[in-house]
């Protein structure tokens, strides 16, 4: 796990391509790789790297090259099947000078060119420079676990793991993209490829980019594997369950490959409990586990965490995510996320990785992905229920049937009023590709009413849904309703929010690498062939996964009601005894300075929250979105102070003709 950065001259322009600039970019991301640093530079390109040493700890300093130094690579991430790939390459005559997974990529690239990515099982972003051909090859893993940004400035192509590397270069333009802000206030994050900044892009998940002075070619090498019913498997459930379990165990096996100890996150839910149990049962009985606790029982799952820790006899550590700690660390998390956030849930995960690092653990396994690929989220069941009602919205029987299917959410008559309102939204849109997500996006977009008149004028009639439609594959219409919802959820929320703002960024902020056993592409491709009714049986979510894990988990964990991971917003950000925090970010003066929100409306929202009226989820999203956008704007646009660490560059490959 690491940070990478670099530049390539376009049209023989090497303006600003100095060794010092390269080092500055690397130093600005030192949190991603505090162990070692290195650079390569020639007359046309530069590659920089900071390393968190996990595999091949000794002798793995990057940039790394091939036998005759015709290819140079900087790499962020892990290739879990590097052992097998390496053995294969050695048999074919390749010679290695390190024990790292990084070097494997170089040789695989020699053999297969840009198709090398198809053989890689892992989470990665990397850049390979060919000085002879003057060609740069960039690649990003299938789901975008590892970040990779790029931009063209003054005729030079720049790339880096984090945007702050660009901004650490004097004069690099920093302009907020208003449409991206609009997207965050609709989808909770930006759409694929987009960042919060004008003229700065992200290489999309599952894509490669090849650049020379004549062209830039982008290629999609992988798409989310979800298939129509006719392309799905007809194996009996027992066979599907066995295969899913086997693939998951193998995914965990190769994700435990590291030369340092690997821990797990244990939330007390099915997914992380399942991973931890499989680790203990098959690989390591002494695994360290880590979990978040909340004072408020609506968010807290510590009882289940302790139950699991006792059941497995593991050494479990807890971090209490208090309202004060959430408030105090929110600005720091925005610094790492480089995006405004409509929820505070990333902060407790930042606190958790801090605890992991303090415990001398650099790597943890975590449960993300199971909900998306196995049908765990409420939005999938809601989609089924809303379609059921839509067939005859006037039928009281149908509404009653839904109430029976969702006893917990229709528990009180008052909540029922709300839920009927929810289920009745957009029922005429069953053929709309966004049917599943329209109620959520519409509710979220209500937060845009806080935008200032100036911002609304700039955005005019911009609608993020039009942009979103462009990302759907041509055969999207053939998928069933749940698979469509899964596709949207994975493409937008998993890749651009959960794995980024709530994943890589908050873990790397404390120099911790997170690994995702449920996101092994072999498992995902298999799950794509599993019929939807085995994922959601009736309305029982993640049925196939529950079956696969039932032998290794206590029944209470398998059968417990799913609790979505959330953290308090209003209660954590606004405390009536703390005037300093709102004053620092959302006072009338501060709001006028950014000009992004209507101060009068924000004041009324603040009054509402202060009066003790917790209000709706929309109020919480608005509050979190406004506060974090103000933080974001102050950190990156109005001002920018790079945090340049003292790095020792143990490799400086300087190949310039005129030094």
């Amino acid at each position, binding site marked *: 796990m690491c940070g990478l950065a670099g530049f390539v001259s376009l049209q023989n322009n090497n303006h600003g391509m100095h060794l010092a600039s390269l080092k500055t970019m690397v130093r600005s991301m030192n949190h991603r790789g505090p162990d070692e640093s290195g650079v390569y530079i020639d007359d046309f390109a530069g590659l920089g790297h900071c390393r968190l040493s996990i595999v091949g700890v000794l002798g793995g300093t990057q940039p790394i090259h091939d036998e005759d130094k015709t290819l140079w690579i900087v790499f962020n991430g892990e290739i879990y099947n590097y052992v097998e790939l390496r053995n294969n390459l050695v048999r074919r005559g390749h010679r290695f000078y390190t024990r790292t997974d990084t070097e494997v990529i170089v040789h695989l690239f020699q053999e297969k060119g840009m198709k090398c990515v198809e053989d890689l099982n892992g989470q990665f972003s990397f850049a390979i420079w060919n000085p002879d051909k003057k060609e740069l090859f960039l690649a990003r893993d299938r789901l975008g676990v590892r970040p990779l940004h790029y931009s063209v400035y003054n005729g030079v192509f720049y790339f880096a793991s984090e945007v702050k590397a660009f901004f650490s270069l004097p004069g690099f333009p920093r302009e907020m993209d208003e449409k991206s802000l609009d997207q965050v206030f609709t989808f909770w994050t930006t759409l694929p490829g987009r960042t919060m900044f004008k003229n700065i892009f992200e290489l999309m998940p599952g894509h490669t980019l090849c650049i020379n002075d004549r062209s830039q070619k982008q290629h999609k090498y992988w798409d989310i594997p979800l298939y129509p019913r006719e392309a799905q498997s007809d194996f009996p459930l027992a066979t599907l369950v066995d295969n899913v379990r086997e693939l998951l165990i193998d995914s965990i096996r190769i994700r435990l490959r590291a030369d340092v100890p690997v821990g797990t996150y244990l939330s007390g839910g099915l997914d992380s409990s399942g991973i931890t149990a499989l680790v203990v049962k098959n690989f390591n009985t002494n695994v360290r586990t880590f979990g978040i606790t909340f004072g408020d029982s609506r968010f807290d799952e510590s009882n289940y965490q302790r139950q699991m820790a006792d059941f497995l006899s593991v050494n479990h550590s807890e971090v209490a995510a208090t309202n004060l700690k959430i408030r105090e660390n929110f600005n720091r998390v925005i610094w790492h996320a480089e995006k405004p956030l409509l929820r505070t849930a990333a902060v407790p995960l930042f606190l958790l990785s801090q605890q992991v690092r303090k415990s001398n653990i650099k790597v943890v396994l975590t449960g993300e992905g199971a909900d998306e690929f196995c049908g765990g989220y409420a939005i999938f069941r809601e989609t089924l229920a809303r379609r059921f009602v839509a067939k005859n919205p006037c039928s009281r029987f149908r509404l009653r049937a839904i109430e029976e299917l969702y006893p917990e959410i229709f528990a009180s008559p008052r909540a029922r*009023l*709300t839920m009927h309102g929810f289920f009745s939204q957009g029922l005429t849109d069953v053929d709309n590709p966004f049917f599943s997500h329209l109620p959520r996006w519409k509710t979220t977009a209500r937060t845009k009413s806080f935008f200032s008149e100036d911002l609304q004028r700039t955005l005019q009639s911009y609608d993020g849904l039009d942009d979103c439609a462009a990302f759907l594959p041509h055969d999207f219409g053939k998928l069933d309703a749940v698979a469509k919802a899964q596709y949207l959820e994975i493409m937008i929320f998993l890749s651009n929010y959960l794995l980024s703002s709530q994943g890589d960024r908050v873990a790397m902020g404390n120099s911790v690498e997170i690994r995702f056993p449920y996101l092994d592409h072999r498992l995902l491709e298999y799950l794509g062939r599993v019929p939807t009714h085995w994922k959601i049986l009736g309305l029982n979510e993640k049925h196939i996964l529950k079956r696969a894990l039932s032998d290794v988990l206590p029944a209470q964990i398998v059968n417990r009601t799913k609790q979505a991971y959330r953290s308090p917003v209003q209660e954590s950000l606004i405390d009536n005894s703390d005037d300093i925090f709102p004053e620092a970010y959302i006072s009338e003066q501060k709001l006028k300075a950014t000009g992004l929100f209507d101060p009068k409306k924000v004041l009324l929202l603040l009054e509402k929250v202060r009066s003790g009226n917790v209000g709706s*989820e929309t109020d919480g999203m608005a509050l979190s979105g406004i506060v974090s956008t103000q933080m974001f704007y102050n950190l990156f646009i109005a001002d920018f102070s790079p945090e340049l660490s003292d790095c020792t560059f143990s490799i400086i490959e300087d190949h310039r003709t005129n030094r």
Partner: protein
Amino acid sequence: MKMLDTIKDFIVRNFLFGDAGTLTHDTLLLENEVVDSTGLLEIIEFLETTFSITIEDHELLPQNLDTIKNIAQFVSNKKGNEQCAV
């Protein structure tokens, strides 16, 4: 303040954050996205506290709560009935 104005003022402050726009006493609150479905729960709580009434579950009907005018009518009827009961 008249009941209609009290209710309108609450809705404008609480859901439109001061921006009354084209809101009238006859605007359909849910259909015109003035209030989202969880907002209805906030309105009910507000009515119960402000007008000292108790709203029964069977009274939670769209026709009682869909416009400011209907909400005021509903509250007036309730208050009238409660007074009669006393």
